């Protein structure tokens, strides 16, 4: 037994065990979640240390090497996502412990929330560690079904419609992804990413496979114009679920997209595809921001912000590829996008948790009602402001490091357009987040009902997440070096 095998086993199985236990013991959800957090965090810490000291970890499941078996691979990228997920899930579950508490008799939502949340975590970890396209498909399906269920957990007509709408995109996305994977296996006899890297491009049909995979994953990542499902779904779910859905779930399909283009098929990327993806990202950014400006409900603002923020994840494609081949700054684009994905996960989850606490206090999330909420929830508003700093990309947050890396790559690659879009994104984020913040700090109306009290301990969780997003920027050198471990060559040499 090696330490790395133990760490991987803990990370992969602890959330799943937790979910099964929660399914069995209806009213023990919070306690089981706590145990899961401890076990998974332990595994994550061990894994991080191993990756940092010994480099990327490879493990053949069951001892069967590729192409026969499924390979697990934990490089810096995987480690970064797993650690961020653990942090975000820990905070979310801590906040969820009260609204989904066990109670004397079992309640429906309190019963199903815990296994679903833990399954979501397990699915994410399975995806982040997998090196096999078909295994990724199964993980993605698990994630999707759980996410759809969480969207519908409130059981209202609107949330069920949102869940169904999400389900349509998700079903279409998985089918297309599966189609691509089937074509790749038919052509190359393997779905192992490392082996595919040597073979993809030799078959003419690979383009069809790549197109299907890209289209399917883009639909799941809610890239514009496939985002229509996202705002109603993310804003309709209970806050802890929204935090997972917005902060973590879209990152999984984006992560697969990264693995696919940068590791399995770097030679397949034509400049047209890269520009198309980047262009849709830029459009998503402007469009999501404008619509965020127009919303009157806090959760909708945050959800449209996700549409915008997911948009500039896709800048990685034009910046990492294109004309200036073998440019050292492609790694800047790659690292920048990952920094953005990680800091956005923390900040967005924090924001949704804040929104949840505000709803607990005032009963709704309409903006006018938030006036002066800082008096009742100082820590929450502070956390929201810190998260906003990250989303705006202001220094010294992780969002700033991301923006800085991507901007530098953009100028070095001679494509200043993307840098200008990033600046615009920051300005627009400042505009749409200014309104809730200004209201939160304003004097409350005389006749406004007094907000309900929310315990400080629960306000601490979103604050911790927001602080983590800031710390990611302040101490960015170490995470920067970490995610470079086992970095694919295409991240440096550029796609194409």
């Amino acid at each position, binding site marked *: 037994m090696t330490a790395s095998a133990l760490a991987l086993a803990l990370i992969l199985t602890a959330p799943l065990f937790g979910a099964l236990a929660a399914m069995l013991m209806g009213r023990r959800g919070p306690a089981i979640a706590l145990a899961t957090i401890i076990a998974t965090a332990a595994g994550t810490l061990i894994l991080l240390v191993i990756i940092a000291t010994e480099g990327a970890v490879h493990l053949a499941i069951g001892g069967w090497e590729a192409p026969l078996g499924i390979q697990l691979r934990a490089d810096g990228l995987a480690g970064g996502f797993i650690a961020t997920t653990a942090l975000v899930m820990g905070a979310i579950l801590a906040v969820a412990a009260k609204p989904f508490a066990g109670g004397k008799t079992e309640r429906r939502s309190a019963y199903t929330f815990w296994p*679903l949340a833990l399954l979501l975590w397990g699915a994410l970890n399975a995806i982040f560690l997998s090196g096999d396209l078909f295994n990724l498909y199964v993980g993605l399906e698990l994630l999707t079904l759980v996410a759809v269920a969480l969207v519908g957990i409130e059981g209202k007509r609107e949330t069920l419609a949102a869940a169904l709408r999400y389900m349509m995109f998700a079903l279409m996305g998985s089918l297309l992804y599966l189609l691509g994977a089937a074509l790749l296996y038919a052509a190359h006899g393997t779905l192992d990413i490392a082996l595919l890297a040597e073979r993809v491009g030799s078959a003419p049909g690979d383009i069809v496979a790549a197109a299907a995979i890209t289209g399917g994953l883009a639909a799941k990542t809610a890239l514009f114009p496939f985002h229509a499902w996202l705002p109603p779904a993310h804003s309709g779910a209970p806050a802890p679920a929204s935090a997972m859905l917005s902060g973590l779930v879209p990152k999984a399909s984006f992560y697969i997209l990264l693995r696919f283009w940068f590791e399995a098929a770097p030679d397949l990327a034509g400049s047209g595809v890269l520009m198309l993806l980047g262009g849709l990202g830029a459009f998503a950014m402007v469009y999501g921001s404008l619509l965020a400006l127009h919303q009157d409900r806090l959760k909708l603002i945050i959800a449209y912000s996700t549409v915008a923020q997911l948009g500039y994840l896709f800048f990685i494609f034009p910046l990492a590829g294109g004309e200036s081949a073998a440019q050292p700054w492609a790694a800047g684009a790659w690292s920048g996008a990952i920094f953005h994905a990680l800091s956005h996960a923390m900040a967005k989850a924090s924001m949704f948790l804040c929104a949840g606490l505000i709803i607990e206090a005032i009963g709704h999330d309409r903006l006018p009602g938030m006036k002066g909420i800082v008096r009742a929830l100082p820590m929450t508003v502070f956390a929201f402001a810190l998260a906003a700093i990250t989303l705006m990309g202001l220094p010294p947050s992780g969002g700033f490091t991301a923006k800085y890396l991507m901007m530098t790559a953009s100028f070095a690659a001679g494509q200043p357009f993307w840098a200008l879009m990033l600046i615009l994104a920051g300005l627009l984020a400042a505009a749409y987040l200014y309104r809730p913040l200004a209201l939160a700090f304003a004097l409350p109306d005389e006749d406004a009902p007094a907000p309900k009290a929310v315990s400080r301990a629960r306000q601490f969780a979103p604050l911790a997440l927001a602080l983590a997003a800031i710390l990611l920027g302040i101490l960015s050198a170490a995470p920067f070096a970490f995610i470079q471990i086992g970095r694919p060559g295409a991240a440096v040499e550029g796609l194409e």
Partner: protein
Amino acid sequence: MIASIFDLTLCLVILAAAGAATLGRDAFMAVVFYIVYGILIAMAWLRLGAIDVALAEAAIGAGLTGVLLLAALARVARKAGKEPASAASVPATTIATALAALVITIGIAYAFLTLPEPQGLQGHVAENLAASGAENPVTAVLLNFRGWDTLLESIVLLAALLGIWTLAQDEAWGGRAGLRHVTRPGSVLAQFGRILPPIGLLVGVYLVWAGSKQPGGAFQGGTVLAAVWIVTIMAGLMQAPRVADRALRAALVIGPVIFLALAVAGIFAGAFLVLPPAHAGWLILAVEAVLTLSIAATLAMLVFGPPEPEEKR
């Protein structure tokens, strides 16, 4: 193998059934055509030499999916009221969609026609079959070489069940799954329900036991067992279990739990999910046995749906 007239005919019939199922006007008839289509597809699998897939497709793809679709159709018809009004003209999006689907079909066909020389994993599987603990290569892949997929898949089923349960109305929580089925004693279904269970049980158990050597396995066997349970309940011989029932929940999770435990235990034998060749045979049989139980329970619960409050008369 060169295509025979039978293959050609089968393909045409499959396409016709699929066309009727996707394009037909009446929803109920569409579902019926879909079930027919599923059985035809199972025949296609037999022609392609994939008996395990044929069994799975017949049992799960055609059978269970068909039952789910019919049940949903019935429940929706009761709730949704009237059919939506019809539109007179064909909108531009419909034509555009048809065109896009056609282009994609051509693209896929192109990809298929230009596939390079086949390089399957038959050789790898055959080489390692002895160490896998299963004689049926498909079972070896499912439970050993790619056991992690199968483990996740058994959890996907549970996730779907949780998702369905979470759609229950709050006041109905803890009650019996699905609608009350009132069957007159002495009716055909009731008679059928008396005869089927012993036979079904035998078939199911056989499928699992045979799975390690011949086609069959936990999923196919589990489906048959689930079908037995469903019919028994529909016949009014048994009541659907309560969702809060401890035994039910234990049955649901036992398979994945044991499989997960085995996966973790594997790290003591070298890596995650390692089955030592010396013990792989009985380990696989044991995992299949508990998985079958869980799968049968899960599939049956999927068909019953969430607990519903008593209907007002």
